[in-house]
């Protein structure tokens, strides 16, 4: 049959190119034949159309032809495959229960620790960021150098903030806080001691985002004698009554009217005041040269702190110059020429908690160093846990090699096997995550106690935490499973099924490296813990220069007024009380002491004054605290002239450069007024004692003889402390309606090192955990080795090897990475701990035996871990293992 019409050529060509090669010949033939038929029956146009449609439908991607094609595996991540992976993973876990438990527990402990550290670090980093203007609020601090001494204090001068706001563009607002110490607060015949009272400028609640529950933030603190109290305080004093309009008596400051109630100050802020009085209720000394209160500056958006700060010297010159002239008798230029400096710096409010450690901080701050330390520890612990996982999986690879071989022969492709192993790892990780959440819930109360924070479960569930944790776990699972996945799936089925395991030696090398890393971390942390404890022990037991045990401190004795002496005399009569002193300052505590300017009486009125610590004591002070005199005599009632006498410590003698200190004279330079400019004579020198923490060297100290009854210290001599306290309290109650408050000197002293103590405790817990996790891994590995070498051990035993030699053989392999770990970890730990110790003015040198002990400890623990398995293997009956061959 011949026809004039031809089918469209492009369709034919399409079919030739994209049709299935196996059937192209007959298909093309058939189509041509049909085309002729179509042309005759339905016409050329329709025939063309049918021809084109047919060719298109027959093109390979569209046609369902499966001639000679191989079986195409389903997509590796299809739901069916995922379900299959999980099913197989679960069966495998159940098959090796011991390993599953080791893996899950190890990872869970690691994850739980990590979660706790994340909570801690997150909280530390969040300080002061709750403020809507956090990035624009700065604290104005004094920074200067007077008399050769650097001064950096968190306070600033009373007029400085307002002057800055008045004179320079870019300052949006200034607000100030003034802490006046502790108040006895009365309401309706009830009185409590409130330690967190501050006076604030009226715009305080506009600047800090502490919501006002009652009252208007624009007007609350505008009038004198008004206060804003927190919710908690409002409930404490007024119960269910409306607090607005109620009154509180703040110590000697008189009656205050409540104008507002604010929410409790967030825990993550650098101050925690409960009561805010209006600034107009108090008298401020408008001097530049003394530090008065805390000043916060809000910059306008777009203004940099540096630009504002550059203006500060100009401002100081303009305002403070006259004061310096009056105070020191020299003008600003001379002042600076003599190497002095006085100025202000703007410190971002978000830097305060982690980066600031100045004089007169409102609260002791944390240190960013601890954030780093803890983050590193978290990473380490997680690393150790992941290493366990990888190690156990690679060790188990021998057992699973056959499985891999069979699966490959049955047509699995490597991609699917990788999917299989990764999903196993992820499954284990998520099981561990669930366990770890349980652990976190269980230990959260103890962790709160330990860290001094208040976390609850909401901290774990809010915001990005949960998705973050889930993603983190997925990544950990993928990471931990990556090595076994790629290592195992690469097995060649032929050699595996023939019994030749490729890469065995290589994986052993890798395993050893990983174990070495684990033990490096563990040993490093053991060393760290020991050094921290050594140092803590050192500073807590170093001779502080006085006797800090058996000293009872009574607080708020100033509220007794002129009855204090009678009270003191009454206590002195008690048999259990050896001595009593009234003083403005006691070591390691809240003080009523301060710093004063002193000028040696050397005839040079132009010399820059020294700024030294000073406080008032009575004649019983030295004997009550057990402070020794080095030269001269103590204060005494027998010398009326002692009102102009002073005691100094040895550091002060050195500072003033005296050869014969007793009889030397000092001018005081107070605020420049005539009455503050007096001449004092040194009557005695006390031996240096640590009145501050051992982070600092002992500073020069000047003690005046005088009536400061801020607090009272009792040297007691009794075992019945509760009984004594009861008696003292009764005496107190008879004299005062102020709540009875006391503390013990040694406890207060220990509290200075609370942050170190906390770090030490946390550190030791983490170190312990790291060791446990590492050993868990080692235990699993030993179990595996013992299993793998059952036959070898059987043969050895049959040939006459002793149990001891077999145990030694098995343990030997594990000792090498541990020993290597010790070698590497020791210098690293030494370096790191030395850096930490630099923070202490008085510190230990790291003793050599710390390294030996840590080494022995880790070797011992590792041996103990391994020996259980090796002894079990060595004791096993060789017949059992050899019978199968």
């Amino acid at each position: 049959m011949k026809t004039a019409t031809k089918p469209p050529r492009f369709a034919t060509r399409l079919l030739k190119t994209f049709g299935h090669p196996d059937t192209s010949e007959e298909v093309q033939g058939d189509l041509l034949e049909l085309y002729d038929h179509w042309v005759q029956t339905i016409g050329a146009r329709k025939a063309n159309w049918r021809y084109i449609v047919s060719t298109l439908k027959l093109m390979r991607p569209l046609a369902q032809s499966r001639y000679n094609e191989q079986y195409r595996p389903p997509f590796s991540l299809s739901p069916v495959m995922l379900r299959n992976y999980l099913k197989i993973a679960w069966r495998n876990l159940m098959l090796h229960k011991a390993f599953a438990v080791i893996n899950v527990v190890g990872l869970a402990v690691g994850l739980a620790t990590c979660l706790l550290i994340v909570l801690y670090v997150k909280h530390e980093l969040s300080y002061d960021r709750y403020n809507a203007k956090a990035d624009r609020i700065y604290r104005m601090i004094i920074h200067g150098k007077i008399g050769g001494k650097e001064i950096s204090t968190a306070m600033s001068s009373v007029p400085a903030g307002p002057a800055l706001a008045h004179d320079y563009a870019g300052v949006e607002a200034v607000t100030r806080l003034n802490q006046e110490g502790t108040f006895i607060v009365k309401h309706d015949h009830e009185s409590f001691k409130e330690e967190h009272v501050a006076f604030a400028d009226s715009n305080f609640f506009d600047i800090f985002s502490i919501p006002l529950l009652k009252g208007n933030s624009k007007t609350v603190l505008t009038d004198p004698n008004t206060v804003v109290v927190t919710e908690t305080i409002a409930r404490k004093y007024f119960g269910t009554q409306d607090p607005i309009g109620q009154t509180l008596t703040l110590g000697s400051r008189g009656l205050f009217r409540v104008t507002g109630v604010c929410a409790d100050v967030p825990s993550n802020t650098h101050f925690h005041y409960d009561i805010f009085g209006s600034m107009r209720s108090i008298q401020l000394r408008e001097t530049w040269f003394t530090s008065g209160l805390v000043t916060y500056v809000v910059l306008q958006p777009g203004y940099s702190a540096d630009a504002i700060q550059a203006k500060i010297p100009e401002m100081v010159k303009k305002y403070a110059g006259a004061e310096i002239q009056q105070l020191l008798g020299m003008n600003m230029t001379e002042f600076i020429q003599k190497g002095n400096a006085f100025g202000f710096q703007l410190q971002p409010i978000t830097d305060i908690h982690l980066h600031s450690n100045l004089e007169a901080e409102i609260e002791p701050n944390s240190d960013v160093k601890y954030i780093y330390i803890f983050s590193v520890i978290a990473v380490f612990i997680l690393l150790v846990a992941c290493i366990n996982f990888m190690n156990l999986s690679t060790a188990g690879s021998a057992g699973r090699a056959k499985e891999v071989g069979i699966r490959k022969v049955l047509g699995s492709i490597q991609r699917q096997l990788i999917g299989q192993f990764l999903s196993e790892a992820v499954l284990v990780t998520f099981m561990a995550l669930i366990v770890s959440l349980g652990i976190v819930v269980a230990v959260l109360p103890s962790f709160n106690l330990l860290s001094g924070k208040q976390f609850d479960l909401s901290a774990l569930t809010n915001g990005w935490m949960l998705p973050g944790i889930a993603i983190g776990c997925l990544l950990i699972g993928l990471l931990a499973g990556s090595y076994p996945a790629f290592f195992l799936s690469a097995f060649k089925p032929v050699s595996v099924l023939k019994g030749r395991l490729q890469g065995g030696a290589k994986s052993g090398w890798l395993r050893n490296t990983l174990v070495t890393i684990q033990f490096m971390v563990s040993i490093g942390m053991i060393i760290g813990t020991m050094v921290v404890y050594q140092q803590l022990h050192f500073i807590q037991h170093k001779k502080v220069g006085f006797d800090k045990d058996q000293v009872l401190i009574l607080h708020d004795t100033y509220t007794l007024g002129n009855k204090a002496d009678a009270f003191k005399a009454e206590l002195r009569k008690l048999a259990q009380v050896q001595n009593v002193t009234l003083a403005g300052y006691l070591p390691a505590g809240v003080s009523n002491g301060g710093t004063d300017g002193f000028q040696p009486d050397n005839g040079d009125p132009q010399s820059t004054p020294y700024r030294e610590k000073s406080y008032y004591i009575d004649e019983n002070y030295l004997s009550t605290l057990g402070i020794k005199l080095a030269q001269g005599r103590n204060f005494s009632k027998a010398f009326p002239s002692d009102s102009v006498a002073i005691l100094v410590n040895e550091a002060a003698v050195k500072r003033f450069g005296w050869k014969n200190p007793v009889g030397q004279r000092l001018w005081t330079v107070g605020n420049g007024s005539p009455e503050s400019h007096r001449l004092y004579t040194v009557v005695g020198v006390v031996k240096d004692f640590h009145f501050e923490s051992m982070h600092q060297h002992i500073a020069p100290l000047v003690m005046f003889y005088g009536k400061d009854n801020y607090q009272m210290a009792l040297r007691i001599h009794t075992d019945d402390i509760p009984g004594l306290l009861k008696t003292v309290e009764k005496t107190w109650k008879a004299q005062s309606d102020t709540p009875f408050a006391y503390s013990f000197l040694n406890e207060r002293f220990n509290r200075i090192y609370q942050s170190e103590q906390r770090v030490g405790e946390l550190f030791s817990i983490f170190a312990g955990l790291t060791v446990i996790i590492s050993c868990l891994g080692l235990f699993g590995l030993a179990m595996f080795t013992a299993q793998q070498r059952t036959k070898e051990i059987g043969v050895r035993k049959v040939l006459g090897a002793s149990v001891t030699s077999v145990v030694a053989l098995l343990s030997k392999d594990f000792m090498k990475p541990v020993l290597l770990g010790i070698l590497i970890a020791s210098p690293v730990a030494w370096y790191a701990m030395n850096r930490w110790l630099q923070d202490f003015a008085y510190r230990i040198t790291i003793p050599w035996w710390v390294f030996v002990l840590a080494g022995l400890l880790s070797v011992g623990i590792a041996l103990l871990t391994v020996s259980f398995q090796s002894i079990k293997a060595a004791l096993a009956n060789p017949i059992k293992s050899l019978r199968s061959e």
Partner: protein
Amino acid sequence: MKRAFLGEFEEVVLLTVAILDEEAYGVTVTQEIEQKTGRAVGFSTVHTTLQRLEEKGYLSSRMGGATAERGGRRKRFFTVTAAGRKALAEVKQVREELWNALPPQTLQLMGG
């Protein structure tokens, strides 16, 4: 053994191949179905069905000699295999059994 499973169109194609006996190839099968059933079937459908039946083992194929009218291209002839015959028989049997099971009054209603 698993029962033979045939789709409706597969059954039609398989039967057509059986009817055409030695002369069954793509074109004849397509035309035969069109004639006998009066339904327009696309060649591509027939082609893929033939292939599927072969995969299932109900058909076997061989290449015939070249013919000039097709531009020298050979034809692929299909024949029903034993398994194919068995499958057809089974299908027929199942149908008959079902028909026989029909109650007479239903049969009448259906006009049978």
